[in-house]
Structures are given as C-alpha cells and as structure tokens.
C-alpha cells in the first residue's frame, strides 16, 4: 500500500540522529512553554524563527511542530496543581483537575493528562496521515452558517457547566459574551465599549481573563483564612501518584471522545483548541453515568479536554499542509516559516516535498512518545510543588500570573486588567457564580457574532440560511436537543414524583 511506503520514507527521515535531536529540542521547549501560563507556542515559534534559517528545513519544521504540540502537554500542569490555566485550552482542565488535586489526587490527574494527550495526540497524527486530504475538502464546506451552528452548539455546553443554578450560569455566559465584544467591530471598524482606551481596541485578551478569574481569584479565596503549612495533602508512594488501572478503564470513552472531537475541530480553520476542549468535556459529561459529579474532581473531566486539545494540533496541521491554509496563530507562523524557507505550502506541498511531509508526520509519532516519556516521570516531581508552604506559593502564583499576562503583550494595562478580573473572579466565587460559563461565553462570543453576521451578509439578511444548509441544520438540531434535555429531565422527575405521591 502507498501509505506503508510513505511511512517508511517518513521514518527514514525522522529517525536520523539530527532530526531526533531537533524533535527532542522542540518537544522539550514546547513542554516548558506549555507549563508557563501566558507564553504560548505561537510567540515561541516566532522567537526561534531566525535560528531556523541556517537549519535544514525538515529538521526545522520538526522542531517547530514539536513546540506546537508539545505545549499542549505542559498546559495541564499548572491548571491541575494551581488552578492557573497554562494555556487557553487548559482552562477546562482546571475544572476537574484542580478539584482532584485538592482531594489528594494530583498525581493521577497529571498522569492521566499526559496519557490522554499521548493517546489523542497519536490518533491526531494517524488522522493527519490517513485522511488528511478528504477531511480538508470536507472542512472547506464549512462556511459561516456552519461555524455559527458550531459555536451555538458550543454555547449549549453551558447546560453542562452551569452547576446548580442555570440562571447564574446563563448570566455568567452573557457577561462572557459581552467581554468578547469589547474592542473594534470587524465589519464596521466601530469601537465598542473601549472606554476611550487605545489598549482595548483589540479587545480583552483571553489569557488575562482566564488567569485572573481562575488563578488570582483562587489565591484571594485562600487568603481568607490562615491555614496550616501545606496547600493540600500530597499523597505518598508511587502508587498514589499515578492513575490506577481502574482510572484508565474509566477513561476509555474520554480518550476516544477527546481524540475525535479534537481532530475534527482542529481541521476547521479558526475553531481552536479551547472550543475543542469545551465540546469534549461537555460530550463526556453528557454520556457519563454520573454527570452530576463533574466539576468535583472526576478523572474523565481531565482526560477528555486534555486529549481534545492535543489531537486538535494534528487536525490543525491538516489544512496547513494539504491546502496551505493556517487555522490558528501557531499554524500561521508555521506557514510563514515555510514560506520564508522557500517551501511553498499549498495543495502541492505533499507532492513536491514528500520527505518533508512524511518526515514531519512520523516525527510527530516519535515526538508524542518522547513527550510521554518526558512527562510521566515528571508527575511525582511536579506533585511536590504542592508541598511548598502556601505563604510562599501564593505570592508565587500571583507572580506567575503577572509574568504570564505580561509575556503575552508586554502591556502593563493588561496586568491591571488581571487584577480587576481577579477581583471579579473572587466576587463570582463569593456569590456562587460558576466561572466556566463566563469563559465559554468569552471564547465563543467573537466567533458566534462574526459567523452570524457573515452568514446574514451572505444571504442578504435571510436567517433561513442557517436551516437550509444540511450541515448547519444538523448541528442546530443537536444544540436544541441539548437545550431541551434539562427541561425534559425536570418534567420526567416531576412525573415520577407525582406517581410516587399517588402510590
């Protein structure tokens, strides 16, 4: 079969000592970048670009890609241990991951994050290898109406994230949607809610909001009382520091779910790994036998989103390598790198540079293995961070938050906003408002509004365009079904109660 020949070619390229070395450099850097909140793979790849001019192109793209998918491994570390989202997509991991850490299960959480990342990442690469061209062509059929339907489907995840009070969940989501709208309107170049501040013209950075509402707020809540020296108990013994076989069994569906959803979302340009993790988390909760436990420290709640944001990298490379279309910031820089080196990315890239393409794909298998080997032994090491006395940890977390935010845009204005969102997050905790819907609204708000307006622009104002196209109609039906579900459940339980009372 052709694929075997290509794989052999690929491995012969990827397993050379030089490329192995650069692959390791890339994934190592990626892990470090992922662990650090704020600093993302896009900026790191851009900073390293000048160094790649003198390198062999295949080695260079292997390294840069390693940074890209490597960063998704590290992002869960601070999310689980400190409730500080290391990467935008790791916000969802904070929900159950941090709760697991509080229950003394930080080790299994970190471990399952690494394993899920490995499984889903590898599935993503398999997808890239086997079905890239047809999937890319399918993705082209996604126009604005389909994107709107997808974002709307994403918003229905609020049903799974709201917790006890649906009203509060919706309110938080609306605030998130408003935050997404701050800035310059793309279509009319009008400024919205910028309060005359030039720094707000581009909107509020998601990193600032997520680190503020999760990390800073958590520190503020913990400051309320003087406690003992340890943050929370750290389990001893290797057995307690790794996921058990039962854990792995529980996560079977999560692995599958994360891999598939992540890859498919990744293929769509502009969709992003954060949406992938939210959808995967929601799907996991929807099909779980104990949905009400999600948010309290359920291991599938870590495995699903972590897997999703890894296989998303495989998916995001599909439009880049098969069509020359970048799907996100990081892939846009990879595209720029390819152009700078004189390689022309486009539909003919695979044909013209089979060594580069297959070498890259196989290096990703190798890279994922390297990452698993790198990250798993580090789990017990990282778990020791929780031993640090919390009066050292709190200023440390605040310091990391400031560094993280500042490293994104070098703007003190953003750091001020971090403080403000920290206070907002604290207020939300005291008033029992869930943070996840706010984050969800903020992530999806932009895309949702844009897609709706684009669709209406294209259909001359006819809303029916959303239902006449089969793909978007299908997704909207699923979204409606998810919304109606809680009502149906309430009616059902009401009827059960009524029957019981009769008897």
């Amino acid at each position, binding site marked *: 079969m052709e694929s075997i020949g290509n794989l052999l070619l690929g491995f012969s390229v990827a397993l050379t000592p030089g490329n192995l070395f650069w692959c390791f450099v890339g994934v190592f850097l990626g892990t470090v970048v992922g662990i650090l909140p704020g600093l993302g793979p*896009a900026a790191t790849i851009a900073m390293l670009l000048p160094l790649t001019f003198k390198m062999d192109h295949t080695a260079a793209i292997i390294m840069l890609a390693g940074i890209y998918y490597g960063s998704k491994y590290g992002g869960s570390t601070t999310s689980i241990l400190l409730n500080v989202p290391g990467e935008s997509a790791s916000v969802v991991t904070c929900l159950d991951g941090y709760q697991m850490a509080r229950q003394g299960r930080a080790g299994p959480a970190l471990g399952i994050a690494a394993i899920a990342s490995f499984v889903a990442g590898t599935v993503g690469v398999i997808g890239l290898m086997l079905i890239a061209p047809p999937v890319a062509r399918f993705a082209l059929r996604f126009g604005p109406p389909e994107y709107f339907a997808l974002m709307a489907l994403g918003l229905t995840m609020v049903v799974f994230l709201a917790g006890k009070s649906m009203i509060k969940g919706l309110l938080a989501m609306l605030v998130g949607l408003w935050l997404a709208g701050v800035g310059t309107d793309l279509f009319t170049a009008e400024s919205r809610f910028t309060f005359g501040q030039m720094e707000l013209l*581009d909107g509020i950075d998601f990193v600032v909001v997520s680190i503020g509402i999760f990390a800073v707020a958590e520190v503020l809540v913990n400051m309320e009382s003087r406690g003992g020296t340890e943050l929370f108990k750290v389990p001893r013994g290797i057995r307690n520091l790794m996921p058990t076989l039962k854990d792995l069994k529980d996560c079977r569906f999560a692995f599958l779910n994360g891999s598939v959803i992540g890859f498919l979302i990744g293929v769509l340009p502009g969709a992003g790994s954060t949406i992938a993790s939210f959808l995967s988390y929601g799907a996991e909760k929807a099909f779980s036998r104990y949905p009400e436990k999600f948010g309290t420290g359920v291991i599938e709640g870590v495995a699903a989103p972590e897997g999703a944001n890894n296989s998303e990298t495989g998916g995001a490379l599909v439009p880049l390598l098969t069509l020359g279309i970048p799907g996100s*910031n990081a892939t846009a*820089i990879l595209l720029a790198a390819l152009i700078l080196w004189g390689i*022309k*990315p486009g539909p003919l890239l695979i044909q013209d540079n089979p060594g580069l393409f297959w070498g890259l794909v196989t290096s990703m298998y190798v890279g994922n293995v390297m990452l698993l080997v790198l990250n798993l032994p580090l789990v017990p090491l990282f778990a020791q961070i929780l031993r640090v006395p919390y009066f050292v940890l709190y200023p440390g977390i605040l310091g990391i938050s400031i560094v993280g935010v500042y490293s994104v*845009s070098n703007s003190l204005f953003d750091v001020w906003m971090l403080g403000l969102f920290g206070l907002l997050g604290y207020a939300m905790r005291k008033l029992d408002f869930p943070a996840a819907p706010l984050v969800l609204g903020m992530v999806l708000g932009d895309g949702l509004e844009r897609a709706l307006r684009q669709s209406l*622009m294209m259909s001359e104002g006819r809303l029916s365009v959303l239902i006449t196209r089969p793909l978007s109609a299908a997704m909207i039906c699923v979204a409606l079904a998810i919304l109606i579900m809680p009502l149906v459940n309430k009616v059902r339980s009401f009827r059960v109660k009524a029957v019981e009372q009769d008897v």
Partner: protein
Amino acid sequence: MKRSWCCLLLITSGFVLSGAGGIAHAAAFEPTKPIEAVVHTGPGGGSDIFARAIAELMQKEKIIAQRLQVVNKSGGGSAVAMSYLAEKKGDTHTIGFFTGVWITNPLTTMEAKTTIADLTPIVRLVLEPAVFAVKADSPYKTMKDFIEAAKKNPNQLKQSGGSVTGRDNLVRLVVQKATGAKWVFVSFPSGGERIANLLGGHVEAMVIEPQEAGEHIRAGNMRVIAALTDKRLPSFPNVPTLKEQGVNVPVIPQARGILAPPGVPKEVVQYWEGIFDRFAKSANWKQYVEHNQFEDGYLKGPGLNKFFDDLTVQMREVLKEAGAKVVR
C-alpha cells in the same frame, strides 16, 4: 597685552576645535546598541515577518554593525505601535516599520491619536501588489465577466476580505463607484479563512497578494482575473490590469517602509537613508523582493513626504465615500 592675545587665541581655538569636533560628531552618527524595530503586528504577522527578514538580510550583508531587534507592539491596528514611537521622541536607536494601515487607522479610529504626520519618514521600500482572484471553476474568466454579473445581480456576489478599511474593501469601493456594479463584502479576520471560504465556494472573489495566491493557482484551485496595479505583474504576464479591462480607477497602494520617532536629529535621518540606500542596492534584497513578488518602491525625502500626504488625502476621500466614519 601679549597675555590677553594668548588668552583670546586660546579661547578662539577652543571654540573652533569644539565646533569642529561638534560637526564631526554630528556627521558621523553610529548606533552604539541594538536597534529597536517596532512592528504593529504580533509574531508571525505580515510586518513581523518582513522586519525579521530585513534584519536577517542586514546581518548577511553586514551593512550595519548593530543588530535589528524586532519589537512587537500590536494593538488597535497600528495605534499602539505608532503611539509607542511617538513617545520615544528623539530616540536615535528606534525605527518603525509602516504599512498602509499606519495611514488609514488614525483616520477612522478616534483612539488612535498618533498620525503619520507626527512621525519622521525615512524611506519607502516596497509596494505590495494585489490581484483579484476567483475560484478556478467559476464562470468569471475576466474582470469584465465579474462586473457584468455583479451588475445583473446586485449584492448577490460576495468578496471575502479583511477589515472594511483595508485595501481589499477599498478596491471594491472604487471599482463599484466606477462601474455601478454592487457586490457584498464579507470580513474574515484571518487570511486562512478568507482563502478557505473562496475555495469552499462560500464567496465568489477575493483580493489577494500574488505570493499568497501562487500556490493555489499552481494547484489549479484559483484563477486570477485582474492585476490591481499600474502595469502587469511579471509573475502573471497574461493577466490584464484593471485599466486594460476598461475599469479606470486609481491604484490603492499598499506600501511598506521605515519611519523614525519624532524629533530625531537630521544626521540620524541621513544615516538611516544611507543605510537603506546601500541595503536596497544589495543583491540579497533584490532577490527577496523578487521572491516575494513585491514591487520595488524605493522612495525617500520630499517624494516620500508627498506620497504620505497624497495617500492620506486619497484614503480620506475613499473612506468617506465608503460611508466609514472618518474622525480626522
């Protein structure tokens, strides 16, 4: 008396020497630490890549002893970068990489308080041409076909592009005005999405740079139906310009070049002009320009000032007619 003559001689020679030293000092400005090269995009954006490429080429040609350090000041289009430069008044070790948006942004955005007139122009390096492209299997083989179709079905055809104040929309506006055709403009924030929507058949046309379009044309997915320049492009010798196809509209240029902060002494400006003079003549640079399908747009001095003034006036007019809110 002799003593006072001596004193006078000493004092006068002191003045002359220090004056000469001063002149010599002023004529030989040499940067003593790395140069900050300010761009208005984040890492990976158009200006960022351009600046990094130039920094790299400068190192190769050894034209300048210090290195260019790219500093990303993104935000509000060009607002943050421009105001950063304005704050660095008189700083001799900072330069900025401008594009067309540095001229149009202050015209439409209240919060963008620094205008191009506040900064010190050094040199214009290239002009980025653009072409009008459609999907390869679309029925429009020439610009005329497209315009006819648009006239027959007003607001049915769609063009994907970036911001409404960007070049792609401005081109659409001037062509619409000249021909009476009307078609819809749909904004997408990233180039990838614009191309994806064209290839997916969700829009009919887009304005794209030839280097971006090259690969898609080679793969047989895109067709270029007009060159939006004064003369035909060397990479597309068979594609007529708008003028050749009977559409008489001004060319909306997309220029890239170098600026300095306000209040920079004349010697420094001359130094930079000299540097970029030599740079523009270097073989590596010429190769880069050709490889990226830019037009050599080298321009400096009063010609450059006139270019900025003319462009500001032209942009203001076009934007006003477009119905965009012009605040300056």
